[in-house]
């Protein structure tokens, strides 16, 4: 087995072990941190489809994360108030339905934003995705029905058939299983005909076009899938906090999801997982150390970008597979 293949098993294994050990030691807070890491990792896996496979530097993925979060918030809000949406659609507290709605809503958002942004490339693309993300952020702030700037709380975590989701470990396991399933699917996607074509457009769009591929369409599909996965993570994140607010849509969120990938290693399957665990661990340790922990986070990020471009996985597994 290649070292990276082993890491792909070990890294999620560490996350699972952390939660199980925390359960055995009756440390629910650590389980919550592990859950947060799993969810952020899922958002990172989503962004990695656009960023790692497609080479699309999207600085607006908080838009999809937030749309997923608001999908959960709005459905649960209407369910807990017994007020159907527009008097017709009942809200729901059932996770599978919420996930489905979050996936569809964020996929549609990504489709629209992607259709416009992907007409451009390079710096324009970065700035435009950032701008559209910001548009949704300001819209959420100025729309008062669902809490406006203050966001809104959900009294009880949503339910999953047959599982008591109020038990921290159960909710962690739900998130972890989703993460693993999505990682397996992403791996298959990367090796499929679509994934190979997408990577060809990243490496050289002109040549890919010359052999008959359609870069715009490939990128749009990738961007949509990427947004949908990040949206699903958003729904879980809102469920974890039982709270959704415009901060989920802020561009700092986009930056954080991107940081996860870079800390772990770009275009690596378990890069976002390693990155998310590292990020949460840093947050936990540094926040204790200093109120101004973002300074250290910034310094570490700067160091990784300037001197350790492969991230954690690049350091351990070498650069053997990242040959571009």
């Amino acid at each position, binding site marked *: 087995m290649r070292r990276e293949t082993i890491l792909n098993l070990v890294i999620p294994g560490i996350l699972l072990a952390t939660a199980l050990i925390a359960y055995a030691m009756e440390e629910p807070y650590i389980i919550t941190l592990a859950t947060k890491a799993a969810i952020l990792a899922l958002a990172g896996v989503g962004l990695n489809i656009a*960023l790692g496979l497609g080479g699309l*530097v999207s*600085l607006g993925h908080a838009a999809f994360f937030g749309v997923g979060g608001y999908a959960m918030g709005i459905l649960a809000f209407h369910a807990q108030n017994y007020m159907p949406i527009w008097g017709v659609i009942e809200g729901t507290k059932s996770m599978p339905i919420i996930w489905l709605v979050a996936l569809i809503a964020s996929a549609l958002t990504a489709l629209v934003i992607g259709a*416009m942004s992907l*007409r*451009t*490339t*390079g*710096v*324009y693309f*970065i*700035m*435009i995705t*950032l*701008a*559209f993300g*910001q*548009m949704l952020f*300001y*819209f959420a*702030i*100025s*729309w*008062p029905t669902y809490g406006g700037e203050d966001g809104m709380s959900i009294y009880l975590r949503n339910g999953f058939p047959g599982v008591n989701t109020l038990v921290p470990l159960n909710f962690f396991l739900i998130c972890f299983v989703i993460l693993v399933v999505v990682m397996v699917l992403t791996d298959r996607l990367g090796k499929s005909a679509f994934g190979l074509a997408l990577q060809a457009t990243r490496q050289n769009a002109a040549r890919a076009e010359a052999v008959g591929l359609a870069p715009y369409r490939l990128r749009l599909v990738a961007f949509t899938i990427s947004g949908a996965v990040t949206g699903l993570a958003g729904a879980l994140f809102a469920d974890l906090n039982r709270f959704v607010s415009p901060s989920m849509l802020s*561009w700092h969120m986009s*930056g954080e999801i*991107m*940081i996860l990938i*870079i800390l772990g290693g*770009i275009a690596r399957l378990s890069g976002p997982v390693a990155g998310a665990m590292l990020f949460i661990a840093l947050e936990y340790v540094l926040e204790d150390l200093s109120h*101004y*922990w*973002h*300074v250290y*986070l*910034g*310094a570490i*990020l*700067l160091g990784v*970008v*300037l001197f350790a*471009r492969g991230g954690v996985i690049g350091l351990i597994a070498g650069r053997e597979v990242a040959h571009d």
Partner: protein
Amino acid sequence: MSAALLIEQLLNGLQFGVMLFLMAAGLTLIFGVMGLINLAHGSLYMIGAFAAAAVAGWTGSFWLALMGALMAAAMIGALVEMVVIRRLYDRDHLDQVLATFALILIFSEGTRFFFGSLPLYLDTPDLLSGPTMLPGGIEYSKYRLFIIAVGLAVGAGLFWLIARTRIGIQIRAGEADREMIAALGVDIRKLYTLVFALGAALAGLAGAMIGPIQSVEVGMGEPVLILAFVVIVIGGIGSIKGAFVGALLVGLTDTLGRIMLPQLFGLFMDASSATTVGASLASMTIYILMAGILLFKPSGLFGGQS
């Protein structure tokens, strides 16, 4: 809506646009010459505002504060260029985004460490406080007129610098072919530091001038930064003229949208929901403007091939 109110709002939009131009000009210059996308440009705006507040606190003079802001932003800009930014020119855009995002984290938290989290306020200088009478009997804030005048003067100076001076020739040559001008004996490293410091000084000036209108606080640069991106995307990256037109377009659209949309919806809705819908849509108008322009001109109004 009365004509006086309309003119007042037009001037407000102009003032906002001029501020955005100061930000966008630096960004677009830095991108045009060095090919660098600089997210930390908003931090330089914030640094300008804090430097102005600090100097005004020590000396009580607004004019010294303005000078202090310019110098602080230019010096920190030059320093950051030499320590970090210089290493990013031949990296891809992703690395540039991440490294400059890291700089934002460092600058924001650093500022919070030195100045605390409470917002600071800058006083308007006596000379410029209060309203003045415009022709046609319209009262308008002297200070905002001052911002418009400074912004337009800086814009004219920038056009002159780029079109007529030796530095400007080097900057334009650097945009066209950086290896060639290095081969011709221009110290390209010094030129890059200079351009970056110039952009930083413009951002610092903008931040210092906005001090008496808004509160000076950590994170104040980011909304402006993102609007400046919208401006550049509309105007075309690398074009100062594009930045100018784009900035005025965004400034006017945003200001007028906030006033007119709620009134427009008031025509066929009850007052409270018209305010809600109007305000929500008004927060989106400039992005819709951007999307519309991109549909027809993917590389912006004055951009070359992207």
